[in-house]
């Protein structure tokens, strides 16, 4: 079994993770799926066999990120430059109403909260809290520095926290 075939099989195993990242960035299921399929295709047509010193998972996520952000730029040309700052949710409409936190309501709230973030911020949250990637790997996938990842995660979680309040009841650890 040649190296490239193994790499593609590895990539297919990370399909769901790639889908999650794509969705986080484009916020549309159908488009996310299309981008992931295109990412797999791109991975398969790379001129050189994917360097397995660089994990296929990271490579695939990087391709998804590139495609998703390009897609956004194409669809929304006014967003020609990525910004470090997403729309400030504070001061927008009131936080979610639910006091009783059932799983479905929580998901809806989180979805809405993520929807108000800059896609790159949301993508960082996904890569860390969804996939458990280390800061170094997140930086590699999103083409940011580790310091930016560290600061952005902090800010992004604070904003999500504000949007989820009062749904999440603070507890003493």
């Amino acid at each position, binding site marked *: 079994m040649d190296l490239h075939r193994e790499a593609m099989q590895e990539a297919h195993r990370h399909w769901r993770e790639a889908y999650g990242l794509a969705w986080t960035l484009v916020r549309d299921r159908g488009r996310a799926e299309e981008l992931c399929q295109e990412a797999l295709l791109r991975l398969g*047509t790379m001129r050189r066999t994917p360097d397995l010193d660089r994990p296929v998972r990271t490579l695939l996520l990087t391709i998804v990120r590139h495609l998703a952000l390009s897609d956004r730029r194409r669809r929304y040309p006014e967003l020609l430059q990525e910004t470090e700052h997403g729309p400030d949710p504070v001061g927008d409409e009131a936080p979610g109403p639910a006091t009783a936190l059932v799983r479905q309501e929580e998901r809806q709230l989180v979805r809405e909260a*993520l929807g108000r973030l800059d896609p790159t911020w949301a993508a960082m949250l996904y890569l860390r*809290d969804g996939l458990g990637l280390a800061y170094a790997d997140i930086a590699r996938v999103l083409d940011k520095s580790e310091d930016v990842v560290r600061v952005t995660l902090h800010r992004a979680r604070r904003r999500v926290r504000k949007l*989820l309040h009062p749904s*999440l009841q603070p507890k003493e650890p």
Partner: protein
Amino acid sequence: MTTCDAVEPRLDAWLDGELSAAEQDELAAHLKTCPSCRQAHGELRQTKAALGRFFHHLQEEAPAVPSRRLPGWLLPCLAAAAMVLLMLLTRERQANPLEGLISRLAHAATQVRDHGTLQVKGPGGGVLRIAFGGERLYWEQRDASDTPIRRAGGFDHQEIWTYDADRQEVLFVESTGLSGDHPELRRWPPLVWSCRQLLDHLAGSALALAHVEVRHQGDLVEATLSPGSEVRERGRLGSATLQGDDLVSLSGSNLVGAAAWEGVVWDATPDDARPFGWRERFPDARPRSLTADDLEELQALGYVDDG
């Protein structure tokens, strides 16, 4: 003394396991004496947990590879076949009993990565056969005497061709995708020139084929398509072999390159009317069942599942 301003921004990194042991001890010591930071720590853990649950659910919701939004493997096959069939219908201006089903499925996702075969008996004893693997599709219809009526194949969802036994013509259908657009239909009779014109067309296509090598051995002509600069490392793209006026074989590899495909779309040698050896071509193929809805609709059209 560690201040709250110095601790709060680092709580994220602490929970993410990105702090050194010394930093962790520092923050832990501060939290023991600071209710405010303890609260912030707790809220952050809850936020991370909520995000984690959401992202886990997001992945659970992800469509499988390939897309499963429409019934299984059958639809991608028929979707690709639909494009060919629709073009045949456009050219021939005659109804085909499969038109309704295939046109309905024409917009299905076509990233077929599984292998499978399908055979159904048609009205009047004919047979419809479909075989697929990777991103390739073969489709043929035979009459009651097992004579092929139509054969078609495609790869990478971009180039589809069909061979009409009656007209002995290669009909080359190029499509940018299965989005319902009407692809351009090209015909090049007679057959011996059909293949060469096909190769010429491929040479001028977006695939950037740069070289077509043609070898003659008696009346055997073998043409090999070599990739151009953009696809140079994808290996041989395809080859076609003719003997006399008969197209002996046509093969190619998908553009993904993960698995080069070597297969014969059809065997049309005069002395060897072998049936389409799809199981030979796809050793990984495994029989699958139609879905209940698909079978019902095929049955309504006169086709019976032949296992």
